[in-house]
Each structure stands twice: as structure tokens, then as C-alpha cells.
């Protein structure tokens, strides 16, 4: 039976190797400094992805800043204050549905909510759409991880007179930190490649723009447009962009892991 587990791990790693291999093979060829300094070019010219990378970073950061606290707090309510309340049961159910909502549907929702009333596409709308995608992932993992914190720990905290929120903050969060961070990373990983919700919110931008109130470029939309084009330079940039996203997510995981500490080796 345990050999099967080894086989399973082998299969998982083999898939990864296959995809990463293809990604490295196609992406590395175009990786150069100009990718990070040039703007997205018109067909047939050399250029880079600077505006798209910048836009993706900005929108992802805003989405995480907005979405993570909401997700963590909601998850906290469900696991700590309202573990047995009706509200928790309902929210848990609703949250699972949000998890599987096709991202394009979220995009359409934010389109009706922000883009139509404002009268133009904007980076802000894109960030909100991404934030809505972040929330359910974070809620789910936060709740699950807090639920796994043994009650004895909480009781010990309460016994020395700490109020509930201090127990949550200093005991429960600390014990569940690694899991919550995993959830946030999964959420970032998910939104870093999302094309559909951005298409109808942030649109995209051929040029440099740092105006949150105007269309902004993003890596996934750029990759999508370039990958299916007939022009070689664009296809090359698409693969390189994909490699950049993947490596960034990897780097982020490593940094986050080293910041939150060592529970891994346990």
C-alpha cells in the first residue's frame, strides 16, 4: 500500500516535470533583461512585458490586501465565535459555491457593479474581481486550519485570563499560521493566472499606465492575446510571460515559507 503512495508521488512529480520542462524549454529562449524593461510590443517588433508585469503586481497586491483580511476574519468567525451557529453553516455552504464559480462570472458581476456605473474599465475593478476570487479560498483554509487547532490550547489561554480575541490572535492564529499562509498562497497562485475576470474589468493596456482609474495591462490577458496570435515574437513573449508568473509564484512560496517558519520539517 505504501508503495502506491510512492508511485503517486512519482506521478505527481512527473506531471510537474513535464509541464515545467515545456515551460522552461519554450520560455527560457525569450528570457532576457528586455522582458523586464520593455513595454508590450506591436507584432513584428522586439519588446518586453514591463507594463503587464507591473499591472499584474499592482492588481494582485490590492486584491490580496483587500481579500485576505476579509477571508481570514470570516474564517475566524466560522471556526471560533460561531462554530455552531446557523450563520456558519450557511456561510460555509455559500463559500464553497463561490469557490467553484467560474471566474468569468465573477468578472461579469464586477463589470455590472463597477465598470458600468463608472463608465470605463479600470485597474481598480480588476483588483476587486481578483479580491472576490481570493476570499473563498482564504475563508475555506482559515476555517479548516483553525478547526484543527486543539481546544486544549485555547482552554489554556482562557485559563490564564486572556480574553477570547487574544486567545485567537496569540494562540489559534499562531498554531494555524502555516495553513493559513498556504491558503493565501493558493489564492495568489489562483489569481495570478486569471484571464477571464480581468478581461471585462481591467481590460488590458498596450501602453504603460499606473492610473488605477484606467485600463491596466496584466500578464495573463497579455499571454492569452499573444499565445494565440500568428506572430512568432508574440508567441515567444507569451511563453516567457508564463515562465515569469510561475517562477514568481515559486519565489513567493519560498519567501513566505521562510518568513512563517519551520513547521514544514515536522
Amino acid at each position, binding site marked *: 500500500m505504501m508503495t502506491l503512495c510512492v508511485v503517486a508521488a512519482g506521478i505527481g512529480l512527473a506531471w510537474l516535470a513535464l509541464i515545467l520542462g515545456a515551460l522552461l524549454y519554450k520560455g527560457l529562449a525569450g528570457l532576457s533583461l528586455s522582458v523586464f524593461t520593455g513595454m508590450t510590443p506591436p507584432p513584428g517588433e522586439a519588446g518586453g512585458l514591463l507594463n503587464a508585469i507591473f499591472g499584474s503586481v499592482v492588481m494582485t497586491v490590492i486584491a490580496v490586501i483587500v481579500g485576505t483580511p476579509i477571508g481570514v476574519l470570516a474564517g475566524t468567525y466560522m471556526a471560533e465565535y460561531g462554530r455552531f451557529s446557523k450563520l456558519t453553516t450557511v456561510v460555509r455552504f455559500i463559500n464553497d459555491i463561490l469557490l467553484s464559480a467560474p471566474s468569468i462570472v465573477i468578472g461579469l458581476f464586477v463589470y455590472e457593479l463597477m465598470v*458600468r456605473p463608472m463608465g470605463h474599465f479600470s485597474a481598480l475593478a480588476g483588483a476587486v474581481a481578483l479580491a472576490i476570487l481570493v476570499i473563498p479560498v482564504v475563508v475555506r483554509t482559515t476555517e479548516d486550519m483553525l478547526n484543527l487547532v486543539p481546544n486544549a490550547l485555547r482552554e489554556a489561554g482562557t485559563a490564564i485570563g486572556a480574553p477570547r480575541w487574544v486567545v485567537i490572535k496569540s494562540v489559534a492564529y499562531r498554531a494555524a499560521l502555516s495553513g493559513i499562509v498556504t491558503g493565501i498562497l493558493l489564492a495568489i497562485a489562483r489569481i495570478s493566472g486569471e484571464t477571464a475576470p480581468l478581461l471585462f474589468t481591467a481590460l488590458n493596456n*498596450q501602453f504603460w499606465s499606473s492610473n488605477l482609474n484606467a485600463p491596466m495591462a496584466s500578464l495573463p490577458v497579455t499571454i492569452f492575446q499573444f*499565445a494565440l496570435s500568428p506572430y512568432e515574437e508574440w508567441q515567444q513573449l507569451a511563453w516567457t510571460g508564463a515562465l515569469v508568473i510561475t517562477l514568481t509564484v515559486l519565489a513567493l512560496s519560498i519567501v513566505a515559507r521562510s518568513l512563517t517558519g519551520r513547521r514544514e520539517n515536522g
Partner: protein
Amino acid sequence: MRHFIRSAVVAIAMATASTLTVSAAMAADLSGAGSTFIYPVFAKWADTYKKDTGVGLNYQSIGSGGGIKQVIAKTVTFGATDKPMSDADLEKNGLVQFPMVMGGIVPIVNLTGIKPGELVLDGKTIAGIYMGTITSWDDAAIKALNPGLTLPSTAIAVVHRSDGSGTTFNFTDYLSKLSPDWKDKVGSDTAVEWPVGVGAKGSEGVANTVKQTDGGIGYVEYAYATQNKLSYSKMLNAAGKVVAPSLESFDAAASNADFQDAKNFNVIITNEPGDTTWPIAASTWVLIHKAPEDAAATGEALKFFAWAYKDGKETAKKLDYVSIPDNVVDLIKTSWKADIQADGKPVYTGK
């Protein structure tokens, strides 16, 4: 170390935040959205135009349907579509439309032993293939068109677009014109209920699937055929002549199209007359409001279009597009002056 990473992160965050602004979209920043077909040439034009004039025009390919919806919702200055809007819809939404650029759609095949351009097909036969009534490459109908070729008995593997597309609209429009059977049973639209075959994502996907599948046939824009070095077929046109796909034969289709008498430039340039005309040509229309709220932005956009008609020809050609013939451009500019007005004055002030 931790401390260092943390302060580095903070520093980067602050540097990023300081460059961000929240300001009203400026008139100099024009936006357009729609057709995927026109996207590459718009991107190239916009890049050159910005270098020359400093005016940035951000066009994004969100699909023709998206372009129509966005221009109606006034979230963009203009939309672009591969399928013309009907007169009634234009009237209802207060829009004008005019063609911006043209191109050709090419059947591609994968047949061992047949070189690019050797095979000849016509509309009826392609309709038969896509209906599923012609199933093998040595069918009598194909043989009759290609007396000099030895055709294999390979089964025909039909490939079409899986996503909605203006290319599909023009291709099925052509088949509908040539085959009453197709018109009755399938019809023409950006996506149709395909009787047979497999759908591939995007023209690049179609090209790739045909390349992989022995006996495959598909249809792509000309640029995909040349860039992918695919085996294309020649076509029998409306005049009964065999033509090869080329910018010249697409240009012939554009020149022979009768825009003069068509209301709202609503001419689909498939199966046009002329000895040298390529039968499956396509155009992309721009949609813009007749009475724009932001007249300045619309004026800038029209200036850009005028520039593109005149100075963007070489660029278009390099990317395998056909420019709008000069006589049609004159018609378009007349319509701008007559129809697009703000405060009782035409928005377009150029020649």
C-alpha cells in the same frame, strides 16, 4: 535576514504605491475594444501613432460581441466587430459603422503528397465536407475539381473553431451563399451548430490541429497560414476562375465590393465578382457613437482612423491585411461629417 526581507518588501511596496495614481481617464487616452482579427494591426498602428503624435490609443481584443456591448454601454470610445450590425440595431443604439481593414480566410489542409496550393476547392465542396456529406479525399466532387492530382482515400477530418469568431461568421456566410443546403440546415453566425468535426481554440489551435491530423481540413486567417507554413488550397471563385490566396486577390475582393450603394457599409465581402477575386474575404468594422458624450475623444479617434487609412497602409500589408480602397475611404469620411456630430457641428474636422 528576515528583517532584511521585510524591509525590502516594504520598500518595494512603497515605491510601487508612489507611482500609482487615481485620476479621471484623460481624453488623450482613447480606448477601443472588440474584434480579435483586427487586434495585431491596431496594436502596430497605435504604437506608431503614439510615437508620432503622443496620443495613446489602447485597443483590446475582447471579441466582436464584447466590442458591440462595450460601445453600447459607452465604456469605450469605439468598438470593432467582424460581423456588421444591422441598420435597425445601429439606429436603435445611435451608432455609425464603417470598415477599417480587410483580410482573407484560407482553407488549410493536411494531405500527404499534396503540396501547398496544389489542391483546388470550391464553396459547394467545402460546404459538403463541413456538412459531412463528403467524407473522403477521393470523393468524386473533389476529383472533378482536381483532375491532375492523385488523391488519397484518407478520411476527411473536419476542424472548425471552438470559440465564437468573426472568422467563422465570414466562413459560414460564404458557405451559406454557395450552398442552399448549408443555409437551411446550419446558417451563418460567429458560432454555429456544426454537423461534423472537432472544434479547436483560436485560429492557432485550428492550424495546430490540422497540422497534427492526417486528412485534416480547417480555415484560418491568411496570416496564420503563412506564419505556420501550412498547406493551403486554391479556390474556385464566383467568376469560375481558380485563384490562389494572396494580398492581391483579397484586394480584388475589397475593390469589387459595392460599398457605394450599401447602407451603413453593410457589405460582407464573400463571393464577390471579379476574375482575380479571392472568394472568402472578410472585413472589420468600427462602431462609434453618432452623438458622442466625449466629443474630444471621438474626434481624436477619428483623426487616428484617418491617419491609419492614409499612413497605415504599409503596416497593414506587412501584417497580411488589406487596406480599405481610397474611394471607400472618401465615402467613409463623408459619412463621418454627415453623421457624427456634437453641438450641431461635425466632430471630424480633417479633410
